[in-house]
Each structure stands twice: as structure tokens, then as C-alpha cells.
């Protein structure tokens, strides 16, 4: 009984801590938001604000991709396609009246009056809900637009999910990639141009919800994480994990493969559509090149680096990716070649040191791999040449590190895949018990005592491999009978 009360107390404590944590987060977000409106000459707060928003938007997409990649175990590469559908739908439904009129009068637009008439505003008007068409209630229309965008994307997820019933592994990955690219390529064709305005896209999506109000994207992120966590520990999530581990065994246990796979795709696509809606709102418009494969790659990095299958890990990975995207821009500026040489030398030195540490920790011989000598020599030469270059007047031309952030992310992904394929946190999730150093996955002494099967002394001896005593017991019992 005592243990029971303890567990209940801990549950109450965890709930309380959870609410306190959320409240603290909300306060921090409100504080940052209030800072952004104040004077900000260096744009540091605005940049941080942007990083937070980006974290929330990409977090939604990455957590939803994690449902397919981590929980369901299917490598899906078409998430940018779902985001595109959600983004275009939301953008079209919430487009401001000014922007609609400008598109209508411009000669280059391919959108018609009918497709431009598609808006939550006009729906509400035709329903007679004039109170909901004012500027004050834009948030409600935006919410409706985002939900509709998510539903349209979910429908696309249904279509994409169907091939997953027949295909497995890397073929399926290619097919999802193909679907993503088909969605992207056909969005600009004349068939869909009345809806998408072709390659031009359209500006004029209200930005107020994604960039000015941090609570919007973070609220939706919290909703996504809540749904995903609930799903993960529900029977559906367990079934999906069973499918990930072994499809045939899962089917033998009576799990409906087709249903769960398609369900996973639909839910993930819905949240990807929501993320797309926030994304176009953040960017203030819709264009085809907002939805490149690059996006899916970033989410893939977030998932694989953070921890495949763990929501905590995915959020951690997203934070890392967003940090590099937002604060890695010093890498992409122009420096003299000698500076670059020194930088490359330092990176090589760090890599060489990491190899030595790794091999020592793993007790692999030789501790100093030949590659280390190569790397170390190259690093020293590069640093030395970089240092003397200014005095001997060579390597002085500047060089712009275009694409360095993406290079960094891909190298990071390769390194993680080689040395820690399950990601930084693996499959474990954040929990308060972990924070307090409690292990709730282990039974308490009392629970152990209640378990008659485990307390059977004969079984314990057998488990301990105590062969001699085992034989004596067997002998005794035989003798008695």
C-alpha cells in the first residue's frame, strides 16, 4: 500500500512539475515576444525570436515525420510534399483581400476569380457569420484555414500511404520521395496553376500568427507533441512499434498492417500540413521554392541526430538544426583563404583527436589509426600555411563559404550514422523520474515480492545458473516421490 501511495504522490508531483514547466515556458515566450517589440538595434532579439518560431514550425514537421520514420519504421522522404499541400491550402484560404485584388488585376497571374474566391472569409460571409469576418477574428479564420490545410494534406497522406502496403524498405523510401517530387513538380503545371499561381506563387499571407505571436506556433507544437505522445503510448502506437520491429511477427499477433501504416501516414501528413500552414505564414507568402527536398532533409537530420523514435530526441535535433540554420551564418561569409585554411586545420585536428578518444574508449587497436597521422599532418600544414600566408602574401583572396551550414549538417548526419546510429538520446524519452534519478521501469521491492512467480526459489536458482543446487533439489524431489 505504501508503494502505491508513493507512486500516486510521484504522479501528482510530475503533473504539477509538468504544468509548472509549461507555465514557465509560456512566461519565457511572452517575455521574448515583449522584448522583440522594444528597441532592437542589433536585431539580436528578432533573430532569436525567429529561431524560436522556426523551432516550433520545424518541430511540428519533424515530430510528425518521426511518427513515420521512428515509430512506424518506414523511411519517408516526401514530407516537403505534404507541407507544400498544407501550405498552399492554408495560404490560399487566408490570403488577404488586398493580395487577392492585386493578383486578379495583374496580367501574369494564372489564378481565376473562382479559385481566388476560395477563402474562409467568404465562407463565413455566405454563412451569414459577419461577426467572424472582421479583422479582430482573423485568428479564427486562420485556425480554420490551418485545419483545412492539414486535412487536405492528410488526404494526400492517405494516397501516399497506400503504396506502403505493397512495398518495403528503401523502395518505399524512393516512392515517398517520388510522391513528394511529383507534388512539387505538378504544383507549377497549368493544371494546378489556377490554385497555385504557377511558378510565381502568391504573397500576402498574413504574417501575424507565426512571426509576432510566439504562442501560436508553440501552442500548435504543444498540441502536436501531446497528440504524438498519447499516440505513442496508446495501443495504436504499440502496434506501430511492433510493425517497426518485425512486420511478419506483428501480423501474426493480429495487428492490421495496412490500417496502422496508412493511419500513421495520414496523421503525420495532417501535422505536416499544419506545419506548412505556419511556414507560409512565417514567410508571408507561398512559392514553390519554399518547399524543396531540403526541408525533408533537415527534418531527417533532426530525427536521426536527436534520436529516431523519441519525441524528446527529435525536438533536441530540431533545436540543433535550427540553431545551425539561424546562427551558423558566420560560416557563410567571406574570409581570406588563409583563414579558411586555419579553420579547416582546426576541424581536422578536432577530428583526429576525436578518433583517438573514440578508439581509446572502445579499446580498439591501434589506438592511433594511420588516418590520424594523415589528418594531423594535413591539419598542422594547413594551420602553419594559414598563419604565415599574410606575411608571405599568398592566399589573400577572399572566399565565400556558400552552403557551409548544409555541409556541416550533412557531415554531422554521416558521423552520427556511423558512430551512433540510434541518435543522441536513442529511443528514451524525457521524464521527471529520470530527472530525479528514479528508475520506474524497474519494479520496487514490494512489487517484486508480490510476484509469486519471480519469488519461487527454484526458479531464482535456475536463473542464477546455480547448477549444483538445482541438481540437488531435483534429486531430493525425486527421492521423495
Amino acid at each position, binding site marked *: 500500500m505504501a508503494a502505491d501511495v508513493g507512486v500516486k504522490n510521484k504522479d501528482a508531483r510530475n503533473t504539477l512539475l509538468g504544468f509548472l514547466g509549461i507555465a514557465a515556458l509560456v512566461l519565457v515566450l511572452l517575455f521574448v515576444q515583449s522584448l522583440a517589440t522594444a528597441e532592437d538595434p542589433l536585431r539580436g532579439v528578432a533573430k532569436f525570436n525567429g529561431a524560436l518560431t522556426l523551432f516550433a514550425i520545424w518541430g511540428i514537421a519533424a515530430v510528425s515525420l518521426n511518427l513515420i520514420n521512428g515509430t512506424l519504421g518506414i523511411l519517408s522522404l516526401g514530407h516537403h510534399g505534404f507541407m507544400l499541400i498544407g501550405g498552399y491550402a492554408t495560404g490560399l484560404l487566408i490570403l488577404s483581400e488586398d493580395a487577392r485584388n492585386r493578383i486578379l488585376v495583374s496580367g501574369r497571374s494564372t489564378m481565376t476569380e473562382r479559385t481566388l474566391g476560395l477563402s474562409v472569409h467568404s465562407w463565413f460571409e455566405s454563412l451569414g457569420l459577419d461577426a467572424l469576418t472582421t479583422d479582430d477574428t482573423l485568428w479564427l479564420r486562420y485556425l480554420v484555414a490551418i485545419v483545412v490545410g492539414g486535412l487536405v494534406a492528410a488526404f494526400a497522406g492517405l494516397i501516399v500511404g497506400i*503504396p506502403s502496403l505493397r512495398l518495403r524498405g528503401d523502395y518505399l523510401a524512393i516512392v515517398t520521395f517520388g510522391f513528394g517530387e511529383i507534388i512539387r513538380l505538378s504544383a507549377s503545371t497549368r493544371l494546378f496553376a489556377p490554385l497555385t499561381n504557377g511558378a510565381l506563387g502568391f504573397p500576402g499571407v498574413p504574417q501575424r500568427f507565426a512571426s509576432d505571436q510566439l504562442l501560436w506556433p508553440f501552442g500548435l507544437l504543444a498540441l502536436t507533441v501531446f497528440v504524438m505522445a498519447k499516440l505513442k503510448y496508446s495501443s495504436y502506437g504499440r502496434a506501430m512499434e511492433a510493425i517497426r520491429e518485425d512486420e511478419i511477427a506483428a501480423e501474426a499477433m493480429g495487428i492490421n498492417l495496412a490500417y496502422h501504416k496508412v493511419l500513421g501516414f495520414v496523421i503525420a501528413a495532417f501535422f505536416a500540413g499544419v506545419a506548412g500552414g505556419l511556414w507560409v505564414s512565417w514567410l508571408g507568402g507561398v512559392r514553390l521554392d519554399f518547399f524543396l527536398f531540403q526541408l525533408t532533409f533537415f527534418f531527417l537530420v533532426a530525427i536521426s541526430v536527436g534520436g529516431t523514435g523519441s519525441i524528446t530526441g527529435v525536438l533536441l535535433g530540431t533545436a540543433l538544426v535550427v540553431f545551425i540554420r539561424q546562427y551558423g551564418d558566420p560560416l557563410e561569409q567571406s574570409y581570406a583563404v588563409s583563414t579558411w585554411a586555419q579553420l579547416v586545420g582546426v576541424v581536422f585536428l578536432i577530428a583526429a583527436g576525436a578518433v583517438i578518444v573514440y578508439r581509446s574508449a572502445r579499446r580498439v587497436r591501434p589506438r592511433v589509426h594511420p588516418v590520424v597521422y594523415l589528418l594531423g599532418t594535413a591539419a598542422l600544414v594547413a594551420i602553419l600555411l594559414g598563419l604565415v600566408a599574410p606575411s608571405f602574401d599568398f592566399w589573400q583572396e577572399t572566399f565565400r563559404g556558400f552552403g557551409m551550414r*548544409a555541409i556541416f549538417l550533412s557531415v554531422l548526419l554521416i558521423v552520427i550514422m556511423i558512430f551512433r546510429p540510434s541518435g543522441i538520446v536513442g529511443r528514451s524519452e524525457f521524464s521527471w523520474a529520470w530527472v530525479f534519478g528514479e528508475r520506474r521501469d524497474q519494479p520496487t521491492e514490494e512489487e517484486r515480492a508480490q510476484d509469486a512467480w519471480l519469488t519461487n526459489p527454484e526458479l531464482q536458482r535456475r536463473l542464477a545458473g546455480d547448477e549444483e543446487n538445482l541438481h540437488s533439489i531435483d534429486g531430493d524431489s525425486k527421492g521423495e516421490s
Partner: protein
Amino acid sequence: MSGSKLQSAATGRNWIPWLVIGAILLVIIGRILYLGTISERFNAAFFTRAGIESLKLGSLYALIALGYTMVYGIIRLINFAHGEVFMVGAFLTYFLFSGSPYSWPVAALYGLCIAYGFMRVLEFWRGRLTDPLVLVGGAVALLVSTLMLATLTVNLVFALIFSMLLTGVVGITIDRVAYHPLRTAPRNSLLITAIAVSFLLQNAGLLVFTNRQTPFRPDTPINNAFSFTILGGEVRTSWLIVAIPLITTVLVVVLTLFVNRTRLGKAMRATAQDAEVAQMMGVSVNRVIATTFLLGSMLAAAGGAMWGLNFGSINQPAVMGILPGIKAFAAAVIGGIGSLPGAVIGAMVIGFSENFLTAIFPRTPDFRGITEFKDTFAFLLLIFVLLVRPSGIVGEDLSEKV
């Protein structure tokens, strides 16, 4: 389980594919005859031109698809980075060809890589990298390439050869650095790594080469105009129409001979059958894999160079490799992944569907044409083939795997 299903389907309804092919051919012929009646524009010359253009495009795809199919046959990896290797080949050809002479250290660095690639190629013949003849060959290659790069402007043929060797070295390096540590890892990790390598190469291309579309119209004989008449219509095109399929044929024949006639080729086939058993039989699997990457990357480099010549420009590094790469992969799957003839057949199917279909369903007053959708054909065909006949046209069991 699925194998038995496949076999019964194959033995039970053998006539269905033929029926489908026949129906498609009938539709195409009917469409051509119909188009001939509605406009003067659609004469024999129009369709001949569309046909040979498709052949040209198909042979370009074939060069890339061979790399995909070989790598998949050996290590069961969809080498996502192959499209980017193709891009690297195109850019290296461009820079080796149109660049003015390099400074000595740069030329020596290029020369070292070229010599290493050349030694790997000579290794096919002598069997060991440390064989005296191979070493002599490498030294000669180093001297010749360094001298050429440092003193003269290289002509197109040499630029192509150098670029193939360099790209081959790039391929080997990718395998050694990124894929080799993951030989026993789950397939998904390997595929994610391949995607990362592809992204890395795209951005490295952006960093090293350029971020703009690069015009590539060298003043060489194969770019000259070439025209002939057929059934009274004149077909105006360039000598590339002869050169590209010809070079592709030569390379494919050499590759097939290599795979079928040499010891290393035999080792490749054995590894494709069963890597573990091959290793027990004394095949050096790592060497076979390196060879596969070398050959695939060399073919991709040739494809990239000719792609640039064909379209008159090389696209931005970040986008050049993606579509051709993934279409070539689709070609490899359509033909039957793991099979060399399958890759060529699949590439032709893609080339014709992309070019010939858009030609016979052109824009007419009452029809918008399907040109806009041509990039999606490869994906649709890929999905269709994967759902209906995952073993592809040639099929895995019917032909030799590599």
C-alpha cells in the same frame, strides 16, 4: 513467400506483358497516323527527330542508371549520391576543358588523383595495385596529366578521360569514407547516409564550382550541325545525335565485357549473388565494392559531360543531379535492378516516355499537351512498376546480376 507468388504469376500469365506492350505500340502508331492527318507539321521528319532525341536522352540516362544498378546489385544500397556524382563529373569536365592552364601545385594535386584513378583501372588488368606495371602506369599518368594541366589547355577528349578518372576517385572515396563503416548496419541507416552524402556533394558543388547555370558549348566538331532528309522532310540536328549513343554503346559494351570476361568481373558477379559466400571463397569483397563505385562513377562522369554538351549548359550544382539521378534510378528499377541490360532498357523506356510521348501528344488547339508533366513520368512509371512487377522488365532471376 513473395518469391513463390511472383513465380506463379510469371508462369501463369506470361502473355499479359506482351498484350500491354502491344496495346501501347498500337496506341502510339494510331496516334502518329492521326497526327499526320491533322497537320503538315507532324511529318516523318518530326517523328524521326523525336525518336532520335529520345534515343539520345535514353542513352544519357543509361549511363547513370548503370551505376545505380551495379551498386544496388552488390551492396543493396540505393546510392542516392549517384546523381551528385554525375554532377561532379559534368563540372570536372567543364573545368578541365575550359580552364586555362592550372598552377603547378593544383595541377600536381589533380594529377595525383588522376594517377590514382588510372592505377585503379590498371588494377583490373594486373590484379594488384603494387604490381610494377601498375605503378609505372600510375607514374606515367601522373607525369602526363600534371604536365598537360599545367602547360596546355586540355582538349575535350582528354578532359573527359581525366574527369572520368577523377570522378571515379570521388566515387571510391565516398564508398570508403561514408559507406564502408556501415557495411553491417541496417539498410535505413545506409540510405540516410547516402542522402547525407548527396546533400553534402550538392553543397560542396555550390561551394567549389559555382552557384549559377554554366553555359557549356565548346567549339568542337561534335557540336556542329548535322542534317539529313527522310521521306522528304529534313531533320536538322547536331553530331551529338550520333556521338552520344555511340559513346554510350562503346562504354556499355566495354563494361559488359569486363563483367563477363575478367576475373574481377567474375568476382563482382559472385559478390552480387552472395557477398558472404564470395568472401569465403577468397573474393576481396571490399575491393569488388570499390571497383563497382569506380566503374559506376566513371560512367556517370561520362554521362554528366555529355549531358552538359547536349543541353548546352550545366545546371546549378544544387539541382543538376537530383532529377536525372532519380530518373535514372527509376530506369534501373523499371529495367530490373541489379541487371545491366535491364538498366539500359529501362533508361530507353524513360527516355522515350519523356521525349516521344510529349512529341506525340503535343499542344494542339483543343489539348494542352503533356510537356509540363514530363518530369513526373519517371516517378509514375517507377511507382507503377514497383506495385505491379517489382522485379522489373528483365527481372532479377532472368538475367545476370551485377
